[in-house]
């Protein structure tokens, strides 16, 4: 069919033809054109999310390998594999197949350790990423939804991790599952029913490994994958935030284009993360289930803790006194139920923080320039207080390990945690706020008087002064770019005719909170242009 006319035409290069072929079917040209030059600003803290994304990918890849050899079954069998100290022991197929993965599958132990270390790092990375977003105020409009996506990823990650930790059916994880069942049972009214439903009868039954398996490999990761995609689409849609600097505004993004620079960097960083986690997994053991033994409901070991991301919940239960109420033949186990409620509230408050802050400020504008943490002292102090409470409960979760490692009394550690959970955040709040305000004063001082140069000058009349170097225009911009809110006033409650105006309680609360955030004690007024002019023009000042 071809004619000589066609042959005459010079053929397009192969790459162009492939692109043309794909564009004709997928319409990628428009997509690529819109996004290939997408700009990403450069800062190491913007790569925390990448660490999470890459470790998530690593978890999925290694997880697929593990599913090829893992038997999610609680059928009891006698072990005859290659690990001598378990020879002839009765155990579930789940535990036996995990032993096989560790000792008899080629590369199995390394993959298992990569999977587990990557999970530890994934959750830790999400925590730090979340804190980066929190302290820089990156959660403000238009990114509140994305903040919630991230929060959900963290919570789902916790439960995916927990279900995965439970799958090998070893003595440690079995104790953890028992702990969870206890927490479920402590829920009033529905607890018993949920427990019976989840475990298919009395604990431990013969079902939970298979059920946790589909939750762990299908349900939760499926939702998480969707959320990750949504999270990334929103990052693309909103464009990335950036720190204040000369030439950067709320309306632009300064950085590297997605293609080729950013893509090369991100691709390279993926391999660095993969390599680093693989190296870690080749060097350090994690969850050596072979020495833990198969789960049996009549056995338990000391030092039984969940992975770190559930340590907060563990700590709450360990610190809580074992109160309970018996009423009309029913028992309400407050010693477990109260920690359960605190666990939900504590996570919930950080999830809802963006909405709380925007309600207090009443600010409905978009923000693409990040705050320096010191310029939002109350928010920063709140975040540090939250982390303090979290960390104290992590200590509580490991109270026995801390007690033996540092030769202390476990009771003393527990009392420290009980008091610290309430006192620690208050102290952290006050201290952090003072530090932030101090740094703001220092910034103001630097703007107005310049940087201390360390050079001492002697004046003709004998006075010694230190020479202060004025800051560059760029540095001045960084220190003064932030905007400061005015505290929201309710206004006069009595009008000119002496009629009292009704002020609703939420509004009063809002006004008081606003005052705490942006009142006299909440921020140091940043230097105005007039102040700067006056000081820099008057040569009498140094």
């Amino acid at each position: 069919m071809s004619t000589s006319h066609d042959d005459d035409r010079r053929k397009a290069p192969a790459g162009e033809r492939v692109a043309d072929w794909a564009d004709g079917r997928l319409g990628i040209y428009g997509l690529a054109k819109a996004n290939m030059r997408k700009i990403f600003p450069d800062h190491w803290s913007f790569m925390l999310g990448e660490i999470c994304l890459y470790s998530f990918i690593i978890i999925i890849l290694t997880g697929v390998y593990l599913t090829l050899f893992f038997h999610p079954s609680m059928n009891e069998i006698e072990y005859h594999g290659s690990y001598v100290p378990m020879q002839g022991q009765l155990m579930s197929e789940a535990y036996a197949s995990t032993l096989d993965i560790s000792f008899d599958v080629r590369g199995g132990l390394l993959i298992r350790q990569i999977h587990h270390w990557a999970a530890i790092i994934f959750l830790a990375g999400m925590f730090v990423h979340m804190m980066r977003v929190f302290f820089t105020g990156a959660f403000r409009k238009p990114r509140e939804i994305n903040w919630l996506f991230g929060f959900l990823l963290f919570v789902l990650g916790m439960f995916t991790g927990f279900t995965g930790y439970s799958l090998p059916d070893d003595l440690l994880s079995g104790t953890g599952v028992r702990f969870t069942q206890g927490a479920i049972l402590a829920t009033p009214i529905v607890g018993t029913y949920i427990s019976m439903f989840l475990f298919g009868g009395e604990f431990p039954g013969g079902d939970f490994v298979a059920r946790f398996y589909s939750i762990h490999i299908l349900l939760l990761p499926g939702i998480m994958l969707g959320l990750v995609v949504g999270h990334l689409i929103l990052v693309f849609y909103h464009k990335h935030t950036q720190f204040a600097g000369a030439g950067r505004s709320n309306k632009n993004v300064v950085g590297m284009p997605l293609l080729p620079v950013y893509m090369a960097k991100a691709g390279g960083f993926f391999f660095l993360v993969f390599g680093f986690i693989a190296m870690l997994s080749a060097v350090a053991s994690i969850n050596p289930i072979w020495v833990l033994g198969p789960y049996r409901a009549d056995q338990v070991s000391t030092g039984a803790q969940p992975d770190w991301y559930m340590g907060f919940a563990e700590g709450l239960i360990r610190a809580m006194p074992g109160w309970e109420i018996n009423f009309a033949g029913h028992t309400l186990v407050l010693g477990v139920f109260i920690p359960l409620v605190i666990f939900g509230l504590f996570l919930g408050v950080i999830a809802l923080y963006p909405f709380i802050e925007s309600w207090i400020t009443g600010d409905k504008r978009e923000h693409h320039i990040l705050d320096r943490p010191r310029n939002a002292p109350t928010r920063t102090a709140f975040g540090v207080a939250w982390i303090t409470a979290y960390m104290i409960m992590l200590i509580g979760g490991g109270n026995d390990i801390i007690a033996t490692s540092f030769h202390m009394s476990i009771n003393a550690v527990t009392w420290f945690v009980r008091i610290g959970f309430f006192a620690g955040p208050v102290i952290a709040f006050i201290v952090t706020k003072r530090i932030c305000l101090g740094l703001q004063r220092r910034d103001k001082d630097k703007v107005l008087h310049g940087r201390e140069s360390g050079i001492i000058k002697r004046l003709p009349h004998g006075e010694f002064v230190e020479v202060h170097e004025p800051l560059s225009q760029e540095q001045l911009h960084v220190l003064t770019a932030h905007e400061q809110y005015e505290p929201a006033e309710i206004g006069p409650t009595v009008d000119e005719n002496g009629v009292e105006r009704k002020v609703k309680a939420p509004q009063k609360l809002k006004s008081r909170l606003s005052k705490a955030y942006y009142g006299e004690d909440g921020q140091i007024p940043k230097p105005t242009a007039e102040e700067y002019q006056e000081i820099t023009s008057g040569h009498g000042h140094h």
Partner: protein
Amino acid sequence: MKKLSARRRHPLAAVVVLLIALAATGGIYTLVAPPDKAKADETAQTLTIEEGQKLYAVGCASCHGTGGKGTTDGPSLVGVGAAAVDFQVGTGRMPAQQPGAQVPKKKNIYSQAEIDQLAAYIASLGAGPTVPTENQYSPEGADIAEGGELFRTNCAQCHNFTGKGGALTNGKYAPTLEDVDPKHLYEAMETGPQNMPSFPDTTLTEQNKKDIIAYLDEVNSDKSESPGGLELGGLGPVSEGLFGWVFGLGGLIAVAVWVAARTAKARKS
């Protein structure tokens, strides 16, 4: 009888009676008396106990009282047996340095001979468990897997899965069992030192104890292998979490900072 009676005043009569008496005494003695060696041992035993008593008076009596009767500072040692002494002194726990929640393991300053003397003295105060012989506690010929199961059932709730130790109330603790002498493991199970319950042969048979010792020898001694790499103390998720945060995430953040610092910078105008 008449003949005998008639000759009772014979000049040699006394000699004959003496010979008969001596023969009888000697004969009965040889039948009844213990052999010579045992006699020497008894003397040695008495000596050992005496030596032990001297050591006791110097090192132990201030708390445990004279004669091992016990005081407010230390319990009675009547009936604790030689095994308890061999364990407590052999691991350096006794003599205690100071009172406290629990007496820690420390360097033993007694020779084995001195410990044996002390043990003999304490054993002489009242019957108790004796020091086990090597074939009782040697891990050879034991069932490691069985030992593991017994360990997880009876010991792990205080000593951790592999005997890394754990916390008890108010500063007390179950010590680590890493590289503890098999003899001391056996004695500890038998006598239940300090806060530990005792596991006499009626609870854990001799074979059971051997199995447990063999299990610990396999998983928690200097010859134990850690197939996964660094053991991180064998303390479970707490140390793993700390390691993951510090070296895992910490390392990755360091990598991130390194990558961010080496970027294609826009040319300064």
